[in-house]
């Protein structure tokens, strides 16, 4: 197809992409640094970027940041592996068999609105403080994101493809494996990405309360020491890691589902 000139092309041409991405963060950092040095606000509550930077160096060099990060990541991995292995098959069958969905649905619909964090007290009673409780909370938040997207994916499979497959002699088994399953994959990936996002939200909250390690714990620990620079390092780490993991999944999706990316061209 012939390339179509877009209205914003003049602006696109003049500003390189890298510049457009960093311009706002740089301005914010510069103003922030200046504000802190001029003591426009109390640096105890909001330290200047330069202090945060050296705090980050300190945490990185001591290995402390990495240790907490590894703990959080391990919990997220365990929680998501369990969530995927339960929610994907469950969602698939719920999407395929209406009566099965109706049996499960009423029950799930009452559990679903309960925020994962509301499970923390019960989780602590059941599993005690530590690893298991944190994994449990993370698991609950990831579970529903994956389940709902799996069901929606199965339902959303193009009905004309099902008819085409049947007229090409597909048996029920072939229909499910060759039409419904690949047709559900895009929605599955959306589910994984959302699950990863909410995993980070709930794991930090869970670690604040129920753990003595992990990035969530680190943040709450430095609050007691009034080290807002180290708190900010922890927060930024979560932001950066979350972003990178999302991009990683997106990259994986483009590799595994090339036909879909081309659709978006």
């Amino acid at each position, binding site marked *: 197809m012939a390339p179509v000139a877009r209205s914003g092309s003049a602006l696109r041409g003049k500003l390189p992409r890298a510049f457009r991405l960093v311009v706002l963060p740089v301005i914010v950092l510069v103003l922030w640094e200046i504000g802190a040095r001029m003591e426009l606000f109390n640096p105890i509550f909001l330290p200047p970027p330069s202090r945060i930077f050296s705090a980050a160096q300190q945490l990185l060099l001591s290995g402390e940041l990495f240790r907490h990060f590894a703990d959080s990541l391990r919990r997220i991995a365990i929680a998501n592996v369990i969530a995927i292995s339960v929610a994907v098959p469950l969602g698939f069958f719920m999407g395929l068999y209406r009566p099965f969905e109706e049996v499960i649905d009423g029950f799930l619909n009452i559990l679903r609105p309960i925020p994962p964090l509301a499970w923390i007290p019960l989780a602590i009673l059941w599993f005690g403080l530590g690893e298991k409780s944190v994994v449990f909370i993370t698991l609950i938040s990831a579970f529903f994101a994956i389940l709902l997207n799996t069901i929606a994916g199965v339902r959303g499979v193009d009905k*004309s493809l099902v008819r085409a497959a049947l*007229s*090409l*002699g597909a048996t029920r088994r072939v229909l499910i494996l060759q039409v419904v399953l690949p047709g559900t994959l895009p929605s599955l990936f959306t589910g994984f990405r959302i699950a990863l996002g909410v995993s980070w939200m709930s794991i930090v909250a869970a670690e604040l309360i129920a753990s003595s390690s992990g990035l969530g714990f680190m943040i709450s620990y430095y609050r007691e020491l009034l080290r807002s620079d180290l708190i900010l390092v922890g927060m930024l780490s979560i932001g950066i890691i979350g972003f990178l993991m999302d991009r990683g999944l997106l990259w994986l999706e483009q590799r595994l589902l090339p*036909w879909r990316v081309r659709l978006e*061209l």
Partner: protein
Amino acid sequence: MNEIALEATGIKKVYTKNGRSLEILDVPSFRVREREFITVIGPSGCGKSTFLHIMGGFIEAQAGSIQIYGKKVDGPGPDRGMMFQEFALFPWRTVAGNVAWGLEAQGVARARIDEVVLEQLDMTGLRDFAHHYPAELSGGMKQRVALARVLAFDPKVLLMDEPFGALDAQTREAMQDELMRLWERTHKTIVFVTHDIEEAVYLGDRVVVLTARPGRIREVVQIDLPRPRTLEVKKSIRCHEYRNYIWDLIRSESAR
């Protein structure tokens, strides 16, 4: 005369909604002979698509039966190849993968599949696009893939539901010529539903004109135009006479 390939007997279809029933289709008898190209046309909402989907086994009629070479139809099956207006290609499969689909589903040997796919791609002019995904193709190309996919399967009867309805006028004409060219080579038995009168006359051996709801067979018009159908045939006066005749039939139905 050739053998009867498809026979519909006593087909009645009624839709019930909110306690009110609506008669959609009433076809006591409809026969298609082997190697025949039948086009079905009628005012919009006359149930012509419903009729085709009943023949395909996707919709169940309240009464009547469909037989393919004397064998009663019970649901969709590979003896009847379907083509849809919406292409219905598998987006995660390449062109070659789509053409191979039906054969794979039936467990045909790989070497044989490759052979048939190549042959179909050549016949439909898709060879250079074998490794493209459907999303990269134009509408006309997509429908060519759908045609190759269904021909690869070698069904006894081809059922086509307004297959060129979503294409622009020029592409549609090109596809009609393409279909005629392929048909001259294979002489597949085809039932082709359309709302385009010219298309119905140009392609068909017989044009079945349905009445407005409920759809009944108003008239079956024998089209005595020479084959192969060429542009000359399309431009001929006889072709226009058929067109005008069927046009009047449909107009009188729509006004009813």
